[in-house]
């Protein structure tokens, strides 16, 4: 069965870049999109979009931001196991810590180069297919320049 990604981002350019890069990596993958946390949650509950294999979540969004969405999602028994990657412009260590606290799988700063986005999604897609979610974060950060790394004091 083909895998499903859900990208939640209020920025249409970023959603477009994301789905385009994802399609170039694996055209079989379904990429659902939502413009903020509230819309994503509503459509998930209404089953307008099927349960995703992984979520890419922006932080700064109107209506319901990434943190609020993540908190809600982790409180719902049927959704709390869905891995969420916080995917943001921020490269702030504090944001990374919040993401970890709220149960995000990984914190990734949006890359500037499209080629890097494709590489990053290549890593994620292969691990999603193999259901090796635990390896995603380490392998993505091994690319370098993907924002603050976890598990290091400084």
């Amino acid at each position, binding site marked *: 069965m083909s895998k499903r990604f859900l990208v939640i981002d209020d920025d249409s350019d970023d959603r477009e870049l994301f789905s385009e890069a994802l399609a170039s990596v694996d055209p079989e993958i379904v990429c659902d999109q939502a413009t903020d946390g509230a819309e994503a949650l509503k459509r998930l509950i209404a089953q307008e979009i099927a349960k995703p294999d992984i979520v890419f979540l922006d932080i700064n969004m109107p209506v319901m931001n990434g943190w609020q969405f993540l908190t809600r999602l982790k409180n719902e028994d049927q959704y709390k196991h869905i891995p969420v990657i916080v995917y943001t412009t*921020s490269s702030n260590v504090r944001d990374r810590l919040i993401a970890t606290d709220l149960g995000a799988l990984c914190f990734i700063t949006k890359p*500037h180069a*499209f080629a890097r986005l494709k590489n990053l999604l290549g890593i994620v897609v292969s691990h999603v297919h193999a259901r090796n979610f635990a390896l995603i974060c380490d392998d993505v950060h091994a690319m370098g320049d993907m924002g603050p790394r976890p598990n290091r004091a400084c």
Partner: protein
Amino acid sequence: MMPRMDGFSLLKAIRATPEIQATPVILLSARAGEEAKIEGLEAGADDYLVKPFGGRELIARVESNIRIAKERAAAMRDYAEKLEQAVRKRTQELRRLNVSLQQSNEDLMQFAHVASHDLKEPVRKVRTFTGRLLEEYGGLLPEEAKKFLRKIQHATERMVTMIEGVLSYSILNSNAQPIMQVDLNEVFANIETDLEVVIAQSGAELRRDKLPVLEGAPVLLYQLFYNLVNNALKFSSEADKPLIAINSRLAEWSGKRIAEVTVRDNGIGFDQEQSNRIFEAFARLNSKDRFEGTGLGLALCKKIAERHHGSIAATGVRGEGAVFVVRLPLSQTEGSI
């Protein structure tokens, strides 16, 4: 005139004793005449009575002196109270001003933070799409057009660096950092890992002594030494391969045990007259065409050293290299800074 202690000495002693100095004193003396009276009043007496004197006069003088003393004490109390009120009012004003100053300082930092954070997104997109133009449509563009695109890329890279600089500067100012034991050897090892590529590209050699463990905020200390090492790599001379020596010694500084960490390079250096200016925010000693940067790196280092109740100083010789000396107390008095 009295045996053991005469009237004048007693008067002097009374006036010198705070608890009783306001007590009215009437000198009683057989010495008549203007001179004796003036001498007595000048010595601090309130009144002067020449013997022999009548009982009624004595009573009248005592009463009037007590009344005057009471009035004086009341006036003094009144004055002291007014003074206290004025001081209280001024203190309040100062406190209010201080709070509003702090507030506007925080607002300014918050503004810098928000502004630079919001700028990151559009700048990232400019980079992404110029990159895509070059990579995906580069073949269709004339050389001149590609040159222009590369100029856009270069300028946006500089913007990114500056935005990151302003962001880390404002974050540094706003967040209290918990104090913990920091092994400077580990800090430098992390820095070397993170600068691996630059170090390899420049052929730089880093020589590092065994460094101490001290109390501090790890994130901040990392940033401080990262900036120093990064500068040493960046401001290298074209002639020699960068050689960076990191040494330390323990010392005593204004009553505190400190670590003195020295970062020395063989780069382009700077004129010694500029040694204070280099720690100012947005100060640049070199043209930005040759050396990129935010103009905030060393300002940040200074802030971090001072937040740890330490200091940073620089000595340089143009064309020969720079030496940065960071002094950091081994222990901090508070749980966070």
